[in-house]
């Protein structure tokens, strides 16, 4: 095992706890805990938002997908970044000016409906859990892959560190922690990439897709995990060890879904046009509906700074997403055995040692990348936990004005318990797929609610509820069917596995239609609310 690995991981954990403890010195009141007293500067805030957003799916998953499927999946990073542009254009400044703390608060400010507030709470909890679960799973799998330890311990350690940090430091501390973790994640991908590119140059720039097919760069042994057929001719059994010499062609494995040939370079569409557009819609519009993303905007001092913060976030996130693609591409040259085992998510973790050799440099950079992955798990799950706990605190425990910090800690424990238990018992669910589904649910529930609530006076509480139930409910049902149901094939599989292309328009249509029919229920103070959402703060006198 890599000797630098354990010290690196422990250092990240200690730094996270230490920065959290440092932040604790400033967290005194409940309001400090929930929104950091709205006094976080835009640059800190932007780094914190980016740090929170770049999850395991971004850090490990994107590179793994690129390694497997090539150019077709570049829509993931593009969509993850473009989500912030949609948020900037339609939501950022008015949402901050609404003065609400959480999404359910926004429902109350805009439509004065308790029923809608409860429904929104349910959606926040569902999306929060759906997003938290794969983070913990990813942490468990990474620990298991790298240390040979058990999956459950990895998931549990991350869950405990995150819960303690949120419960004792709240969001104020989390802001510092998240900002630190953005820079750590960027460094952890950027520095090894410099050495990897130099190595690639030194190796005489090997082709990414040699005409004869992908080849092994060095002698490699691959242990077969499932019975399969190689190249459609030779069958192998689970447990069999295959040996390949340097320069051998990588055989096509029947059990692994990936692009083995030069098609990888071209947008040929194993993925249909429907699935591509569904993915684009889910990622472009889903970001604004993720509860942990929105809660960050309340920490800006005013609407204009919320806008500037979002722009900086867009730049920071875009800068980050240049890197995972490169890892996927170089993985094609240096770690093609991952195509055979199907564990392509490990490409970021394994590439430095595979390309640079297992000398000190390769191992040191390998440890750095792993530390970055740990930061990705920690930051996203901290952010999610803070926002879910915030909603449990205000809407489920309902302590009213006398809410104490102790109540917030109870809420944090409650919020962490369910996903942790689920993560311990469910280990075989497809990680990157669940993240995509969380985006689809958010895009079909909160996106229409926010966009129509902010820009259209005619929205009514009945319309909003109907739209949430129709669009969000349909997306939720599709998620449950995908995760728990039987494997689907053909046309129905596409419609259920990538639901956004029909659930998002459905939510918008139902929301607008029902609102038009219940026009008398438009809140009487909608004019004042609109003024508050859109007028610059300088006019508030």
């Amino acid at each position: 095992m890599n000797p630098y690995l354990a010290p690196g991981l422990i250092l990240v954990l200690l730094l996270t706890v230490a920065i959290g403890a440092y932040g604790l010195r400033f967290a005194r009141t409940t309001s400090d805990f929930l929104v950091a007293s709205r006094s976080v500067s835009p640059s800190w805030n932007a780094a914190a938002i980016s740090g929170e957003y770049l999850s395991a799916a971004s850090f490990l998953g994107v590179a793994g997908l690129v390694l497997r499927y090539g150019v077709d999946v570049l829509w993931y990073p593009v969509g993850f970044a473009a989500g912030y542009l949609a948020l900037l254009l339609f939501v950022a400044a008015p949402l901050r000016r609404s003065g609400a703390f959480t999404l359910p608060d926004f429902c109350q400010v805009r439509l004065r409906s308790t029923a809608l507030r409860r429904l929104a709470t349910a959606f926040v909890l569902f999306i929060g859990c759906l997003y938290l679960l794969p983070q913990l799973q990813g942490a468990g799998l990474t620990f298991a892959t790298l240390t040979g330890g058990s999956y459950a311990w990895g998931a549990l350690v991350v869950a405990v560190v995150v819960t303690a940090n949120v419960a004792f430091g709240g969001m104020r501390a989390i802001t510092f922690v998240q900002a630190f973790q953005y820079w750590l994640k960027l460094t952890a991908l950027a520095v090894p990439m410099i050495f990897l590119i130099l190595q690639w140059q030194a190796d005489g720039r090997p082709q990414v897709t040699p005409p004869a097919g992908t080849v092994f760069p060095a002698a490699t042994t691959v242990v077969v995990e499932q019975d399969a057929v190689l190249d459609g001719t030779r069958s192998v059994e689970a447990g069999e060890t295959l040996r390949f010499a340097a320069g051998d062609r990588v055989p096509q494995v029947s059990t692994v879904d990936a692009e083995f040939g030069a098609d990888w370079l071209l947008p040929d569409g194993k993925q249909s046009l429907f699935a591509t557009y569904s993915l684009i819609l889910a990622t472009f519009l889903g970001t604004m509906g993720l509860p942990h993303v929105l809660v960050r905007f309340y920490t800006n001092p005013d609407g204009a700074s919320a806008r500037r913060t979002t722009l900086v976030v867009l730049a920071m996130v875009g800068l980050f997403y240049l890197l995972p693609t490169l890892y996927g591409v170089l993985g094609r040259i240096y770690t093609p055995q991952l195509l055979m085992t199907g564990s392509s998510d490990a490409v970021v973790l394994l590439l430095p040692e595979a390309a640079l050799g297992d000398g000190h440099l390769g191992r040191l950079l390998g440890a750095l990348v792993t530390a970055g992955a740990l930061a990705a798990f920690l930051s996203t799950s901290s952010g999610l936990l803070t926002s879910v706990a915030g909603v449990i605190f205000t809407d489920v425990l309902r302590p009213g004005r006398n809410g104490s910090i102790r109540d917030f800690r109870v809420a944090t424990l409650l919020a962490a318990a369910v996903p942790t238990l689920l993560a311990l018992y469910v280990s075989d669910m497809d990680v990157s797929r669940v993240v995509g589904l969380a985006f689809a649910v958010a895009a079909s529930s909160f996106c229409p609610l926010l966009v129509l609530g902010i820009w259209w006076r005619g929205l009514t509480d009945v319309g909003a509820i109907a739209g949430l139930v129709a669009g969000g409910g349909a997306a939720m049902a599709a998620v449950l069917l995908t995760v728990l149901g039987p494997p689907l094939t053909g046309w129905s599989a596409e419609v259920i596995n990538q639901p956004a292309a029909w659930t998002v328009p459905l939510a918008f249509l139902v929301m607008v239609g029902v609102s038009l029919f219940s026009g008398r229920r438009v809140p009487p103070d909608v004019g004042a609310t609109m003024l508050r959402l859109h007028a610059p703060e300088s006019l508030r006198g």
Partner: protein
Amino acid sequence: MAVEEPPPRPRVRVVLADAAARRAAADHGSADLAEQTPVGEALVKGLVRAQLALALRLALVVAAGLGTLPLLFAVAPAVGEVKLFGMNLPWVLLGLLSFPFLVLVGAAYVRWAERNEQDFAALIRRPEK
């Protein structure tokens, strides 16, 4: 935090929600806004419309710039074979150029949205012009 007791002067309280630095509405524009007169309503509607039009226009730029790419790749597969700096065009467009493009659109939005707000504020402060 969202619902408060009805204060004695509700119309002023709603607008001046951040009660810390409250001052009396000194001029026509602010008074129109605060008291929800037809003039005030029309001013706010104008602002909302201007901001929405700006956001939609830029969203359309992105939809045209990025959203049509899957269709283009499907209709004209030859585009995928075009090489730029030794890389296939779709890789350059999606993996590299899409991010600065998004940031540029965002920067343009921030600039113009703030200008809309300044125009609105100027209109309120000097309504006679």
